[in-house]
């Protein structure tokens, strides 16, 4: 049984690793991010299989954390926060005097 689960984990991981080609290819960052997402889901699945197969403490927790944070980093890329919350981020404030040294 555990051999089967291990091999399944390997298959999942190998499959999503193919998706990495897309990360390399693009063409848009959205493609790359979706490939990273797929890798994340695949990683979670592989971890779950691995955890059950080897009965290691904590591996399921790791999968839980990965699943929890799967969407987290992508938020930073997609959300226009900080850009129009009252002040444009990448623009210097010309009228603001420099602090005296």
């Amino acid at each position, binding site marked *: 049984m555990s051999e089967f689960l291990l091999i399944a984990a390997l298959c999942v991981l190998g499959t999503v690793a193919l998706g990495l080609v897309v990360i390399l290819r693009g063409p848009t960052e959205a493609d790359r991010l979706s490939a990273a997402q797929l890798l994340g889901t695949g990683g979670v699945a592989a971890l779950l299989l691995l955890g059950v197969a080897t009965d290691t403490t904590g591996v399921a927790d790791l999968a839980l954390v990965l699943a929890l944070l799967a969407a987290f980093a992508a938020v930073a890329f997609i959300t226009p926060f900080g850009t129009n919350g009252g002040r444009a981020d*990448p*623009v*210097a404030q010309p009228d603001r005097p420099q602090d005296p040294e």
Partner: protein
Amino acid sequence: MSSVTLFGLCGAALVGLGLFGLIVQPGVLRKILAFNLLGSGVLLLFGVIARRGGGVVAGNGSDPVAQALIITALVVAFAATVLAVALLRRLVQETGRDSLDSDG
């Protein structure tokens, strides 16, 4: 060759790659990324050392002392990354560029 040795060699290569990037990359964000590669290569090597130690004694574990040190180092690396990125963003605000002048 065992898996542990394999990951050790991987760590060694990552250290080389990160070091090269840290010196050569012109953009600051790329330098920060290179630093992170370098750091994770170093920790991977540490992890290999931990696995050897833990594996010999506890049968199927990793040396907890080394693991604790790695966790501490990971937190430091994160804080460093945040500070560097904050400096970079301030630099971009001020100068509109993401590179340090000249030499690097």
